[in-house]
């Protein structure tokens, strides 16, 4: 049984952490407006989740890259499972508790820690019990296989969304069919009806959101570059949690305006800027404050993440909302680069990105639980070597601090900075 008191604790604790950061930011005159808006967005997201029952709204837990635009259009409260695990590790440092609970369920240590921790958190009753569990094969075997255990733990119905691997017409039709089945499932299980006008509005805002992300990416080409590693992760979170939502637009517009001003003034995220880094994959979330300070100390700034923030070309059409939700998948950077055959096109794009952003070196965060990204490491390294960009591999885990110590990670990065200095 899931204990209701315990259930609200983790979400309440995330909300408390966000509010504390907001208060701290409000008391700092130099704090950016976008920072405040970011934590306000998180506060809003998790408050809606915490109060869903009271407000009579169903909760849908879902894995990464699940089209939560559909949930918002149906007035269903989304709970992004991996991001919530991240938030717990970042704000609450309770990894040991949830990971050991995952191990007690019988999940092997090779399984992605975000998913092990998630199952553990559900089994502890640390997260709200969802009314439905939604998951897909985007972007790996872990996402494809994590849903069934969670439906059993929570005794709730589940829907698996099957993404095609390539881009033929038949595959496009298949994906649309899957989305239609998803909507039918949600209507049946939650009693909510799809509001197509609302979905169109969300799609229109999503299109704007992607444009804003592209503009922000352009601003990051400036020397010095205006966004640090924390900013990169915040950009990811916006799309993961609030796709096509007004608060996402508000945050991104504020951020773009601030960054344009910073670039105009010739300032950067670190001063002086000595090394421009490309980040491949996601750094340990729980080390973000530490990595922030390391960037400052060594003048090393993350300027580009081709696998995560480089949206592909294309626009969404609010007049065709469902097709646009499907089309968004072909624009998502991770979908383009890490799902589907990995070929010369992706490798050339990474090399092109390194040139455009005047990258000195690349850091590959080799998340031990993420097999498909690590298997691509050699190909990226060789592609970057061809344009004389060295790549550092850092073994790590997104949420589990026992894989590699802070000191080891620091040692590797500092050595890499020295190598870049010598070049």
């Amino acid at each position: 049984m899931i204990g209701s008191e315990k259930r609200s604790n983790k979400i309440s604790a995330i909300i408390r952490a966000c509010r504390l950061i907001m208060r701290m930011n409000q008391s700092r005159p130099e704090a950016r407006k976008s920072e405040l808006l970011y934590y306000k967005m998180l506060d809003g997201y998790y408050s809606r989740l915490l109060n869903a029952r009271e407000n009579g709204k169903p909760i849908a837990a879902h894995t990464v890259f699940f089209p939560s635009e559909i949930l918002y259009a149906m007035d269903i409260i989304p709970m992004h499972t991996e991001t919530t695990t991240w938030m717990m590790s970042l704000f609450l440092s309770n990894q040991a508790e949830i990971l050991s609970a995952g191990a007690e369920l019988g999940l092997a240590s090779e399984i992605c820690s975000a998913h092990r921790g998630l199952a553990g958190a559900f089994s502890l009753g640390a997260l709200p019990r969802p009314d439905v569990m939604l998951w897909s094969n985007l972007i790996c075997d872990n996402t494809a296989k994590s849903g069934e255990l969670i439906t059993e733990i929570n005794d709730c119905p589940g829907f698996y969304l099957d993404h095609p691997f390539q881009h033929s017409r038949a595959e496009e039709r298949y994906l649309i069919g899957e989305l239609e089945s998803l909507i039918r499932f949600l209507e049946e299980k939650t009693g909510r009806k799809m509001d197509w006008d609302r979905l169109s509005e969300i799609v229109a805002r999503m299109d704007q959101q992607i444009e804003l992300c592209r503009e922000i990416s352009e601003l990051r080409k400036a020397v010095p570059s205006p966004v640090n590693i924390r900013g990169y992760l915040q950009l990811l979170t916006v799309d993961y949690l609030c796709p096509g939502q007004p608060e996402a637009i508000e945050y991104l517009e504020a951020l773009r305006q601030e960054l344009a001003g910073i670039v105009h003034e010739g300032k950067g995220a670190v001063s002086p800027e000595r090394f421009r880094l490309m980040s491949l994959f996601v750094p340990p979330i729980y080390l973000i404050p530490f990595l922030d300070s390391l960037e400052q100390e060594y003048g090393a700034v993350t300027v580009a993440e081709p696998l995560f923030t480089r949206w592909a070309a294309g626009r969404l059409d609010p007049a065709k909302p469902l097709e646009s939700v499907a089309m968004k998948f072909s624009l998502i950077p991770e979908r383009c680069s890490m799902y589907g055959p990995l070929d010369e096109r992706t490798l050339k794009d990474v090399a092109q990105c390194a040139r455009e952003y005047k990258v000195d070196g690349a850091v590959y965060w080799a998340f031990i639980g993420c097999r498909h990204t690590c298997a691509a490491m050699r190909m990226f390294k060789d592609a970057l070597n061809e344009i004389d960009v060295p790549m550092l591999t850092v073994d790590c885990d997104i949420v589990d601090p026992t894989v590699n110590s802070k000191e080891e990670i620091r040692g590797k990065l500092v050595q890499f900075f020295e190598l870049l200095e010598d070049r």
Partner: protein
Amino acid sequence: MLKRFRVVNEAFPETPEILEHKREGNKVFGWLCTYIPEEVMHAAGILPIRITGYSKETELEDGNAYLYINNCSFSRSCFQMGIRGEYSFLDGVVGGSTCDGARRLFDLWRYYIKTPFHHVLTVPRKQTQKAHELYYDQVRQFKQHLEEFLGVQITDESLRHSIEIYNESRALLGRLYELRKRPEPPITGAETMEVLNASFRMPKELFNQWLRELLDELAETRNTHKGRARLMVVGSVMNNPEFIQSIEEQGGLVVTDELCTSTRYWSDPVVLDEGMTLLEAISKRYLNGFPCARMVPSEERFNRILGLARDFKVDGAISEIIRYCVPYAHDLPLLKDRLKAAGIPTLALDVEYGTSGSGQIQTRVQAFLEMLEAKGK
């Protein structure tokens, strides 16, 4: 008779049969997963063989250097053999979007090993009508790609012939497994694995002939096997007879399995229904057959495992999961619950591909057998 199969496996990859096929000017293609339709390649005159890794635990320096340490040792082992030229005779390699390990193995194979022909199929994870339509479209594209590459037309006649050959092989393997249902089977689990390994490493026509002869021999033999417990092996890709042998040397008799190198490979014939094209029938068999752990929902896989356990009167299940084989690792807690509910205890082993059953594994198997014996009393 069994020795002939063993000789093929010992010589693999460069077996006399494969080299003979090449000498005759024919093509040999390697496939990476059981979701790749062999009949389509066979109908084009190709000898399809399964790409497997080293049959013993080996240092995987090259595998680690390219696929990194956190991809399954099956992928790393296969890749290492490829990059070291042990599959240099291949004219083509065919993969699918089946699991992360397999798809990345294909990506790196294409990029670094550069076998002349390469093709990857989108393989849905569902068994719905729409999933079947998509997979059929993929098989159709694959056929077209083969025809363009080879400059031949794959006719209905040749497809029908290939279906017959492959279905015969499945039926013969089904007969072999029927013998294992006996209280005292005439063939061990390790011996069966030798036969199965050869089945995807040599021309099917010749394999069928050898297997018919083996079945005749087994029908007359008085040499039977009895164990302390009847076991089923479930889990990741595994084709090492020594692993099974190490279990059987301790008195466990492996009578069935759900491995993709064994039961899942030969189960489910291509059924030629009226109103269905040959290619539709092939694609239906491959997508809708005995599911791998990659498929969602897992219930169909679990039900078929429980069915095997009943049919083969299994006392216990040994789950062997290669480290970083995530689909099977996710299924394990759910499968164990279902087996337990059916009164079948499970021994869960974390292994590496190619393992022959180390001391620690033997100790655990021994303890498991003792537990099963105590339970049976």
